[in-house]
């Protein structure tokens, strides 16, 4: 049973469509990034999947069940954006609360807290936790009871690089154990390496939903060759020979389609010692995101 299946989901809020014919499927063990500007509909989609907000058309099925139903809630884990727990409670007490709500009577809370690196702080009040520690505690409750579907809203916001790395390692383990993971985020460079598929929402419409490679091909974005000339005088000659543009004294930028890359490299190698260095930059997630989500508009 597919953990998450959205088909033609439509939702209107005060006259305008916030979700417009959105379809999305997340398979067991898949890590899918959900991207989009603020207000593109990411959080609304997540809330609809959780059954916290209703939809006006289409269908959502969580492991075959309606969102918000008992079986669906048992199958889903959720990490809200910037959640703040009761500061007066300890990490262990908060986790015990969620274990009780999830019906995980025998959950090993100590092991879970250890898994997210909070073993030493388990019996300290959450008011004394740093932002990263609170986020780790949020992740610990996601791990309760092996969810079939995990919805993570901006899981790395406010985390330092080491914490981010740890967090993605845990997410990878979760996916490896068969949990379908949907990550809504703005941190594009991290997602590039850490997800199997990219879905992009733009003003409530799903404008892209594929692997990074397939999206790059579909977008037809140019590959950028950055060439450093051996001496200042050579830069203009290289730019003229290759059709590139000189961007400073010794650097030239050449944009070409994926198929034209080898031809450009041949031409550059023909220039011999005038070329000091070449750097090849394929289109990254940031470029793709800008392409599909329509620039800054």
């Amino acid at each position, binding site marked *: 049973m597919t953990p998450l299946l959205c088909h033609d989901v439509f939702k209107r809020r005060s006259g305008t469509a916030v979700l417009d014919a959105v379809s999305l499927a997340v398979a067991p063990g898949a890590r899918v990034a959900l991207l989009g500007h603020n207000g593109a509909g990411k959080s609304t989609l997540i*809330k609809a999947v*959780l059954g*916290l*907000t209703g939809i006006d058309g289409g269908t959502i099925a969580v492991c075959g069940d309606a969102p918000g139903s*008992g079986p669906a*809630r*048992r199958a*889903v*884990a*959720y*990490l*809200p*954006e*910037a*959640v*703040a*727990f*009761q500061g*007066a*409670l300890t990490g262990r*007490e*908060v986790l*015990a*609360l*969620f*274990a*009780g*709500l*999830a*019906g995980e*009577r025998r959950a090993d809370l100590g092991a879970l807290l250890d898994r997210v690196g909070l073993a030493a702080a388990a019996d300290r*009040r959450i008011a004394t936790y740093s932002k990263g520690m609170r986020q780790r505690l*949020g992740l610990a*409750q996601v791990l309760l009871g092996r969810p079939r579907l995990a919805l993570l809203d901006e899981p790395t916001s406010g985390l330092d690089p080491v914490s981010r790395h740890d967090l993605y390692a845990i997410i990878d383990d979760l996916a490896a154990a068969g949990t379908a993971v949907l990550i809504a985020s703005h941190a594009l460079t991290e997602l590039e390496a850490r997800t199997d598929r990219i879905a992009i929402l733009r003003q409530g419409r799903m404008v892209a939903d594929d692997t990074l490679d397939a999206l790059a091909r579909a977008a037809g974005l140019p590959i950028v060759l950055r060439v450093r000339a051996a001496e200042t005088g050579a830069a203009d000659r290289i730019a003229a020979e290759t059709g590139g543009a000189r961007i400073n004294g010794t650097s030239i930028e050449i944009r070409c389609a994926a198929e034209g890359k080898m031809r450009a490299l041949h031409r550059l190698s023909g220039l011999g010692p005038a070329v000091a260095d070449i750097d090849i930059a394929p289109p990254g997630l940031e470029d793709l995101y800008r392409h599909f989500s329509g620039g800054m508009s």
Partner: protein
Amino acid sequence: MSAVQRIRAVARAEAAVLRRNRWLAVATLIMVVFAVALSLAGSAPTGTLGVDMLTVSVASMTTLAVYLIPLLALLISFDAVAGEADRGALGLLLSYPASRAEILLGKAVAHVAALSVACVVGFGVAGGLAVALGGAGADSLWALARLMGTSVLLGAVFVGLGYVLSSLAGSSAAAAGLSAALWLVFVVLYDLALLAAVVLDGDGGFTRSAFPWVMTANPADAFRLWNIAGSDTVAVAAGMTGAADALPRWAAPASLILWPSVAFWLARAAFRRVEP
């Protein structure tokens, strides 16, 4: 029973919060201080009325409880839903397989239990002091027990009404404001409005037939009537024999016992409309 397990999980967490942020200690202290002060100050007419000191003490504490218990109950409950929403934790709580009624019930168990501790300790200490100083009879001990029990019921009503406001308000600050207004209406303005109606009506139909019932419909007044009508000696001490005699004996208890369920039902309905 997993529903019981979920309610218990919420109640346990809420109880830990109340203990740790000293709410329980402060509320109990307030109850003890006010109850002791009032029952000592009110002990002067003992001899002239021919009742023991505990009876006078219960009458004084009844008057105190009408004001203080709704206030404490609203203070403890106004943040229950709005606070979770403000923290961004409400969506997470509702993503778990617990119904909204179960979440409210869990909070209510902890909140009413904390109020009960404050009431029983506060009235118990003051009552014990009155017994030590001026003696007590079976009737006055029974009146003290009834005061404790009805105080818990009154607290439960306003805990439930606090949840209603907390769900409707949308933010903690708005919920606090609405709670203050609710307290003022039930505890002060309602009685003032009734008084004005009686004065305008004179000895008309409203005063004779409708007034006692309208008065009993307010849980705070039902609390007062039950405690005073329930014991002849307390009524003598409070000087309220007339008002209590106008109604059947079951009216005030029925109102106060029904109100917690009504308040909770309203709270569930209001909480259901909340979209995190």
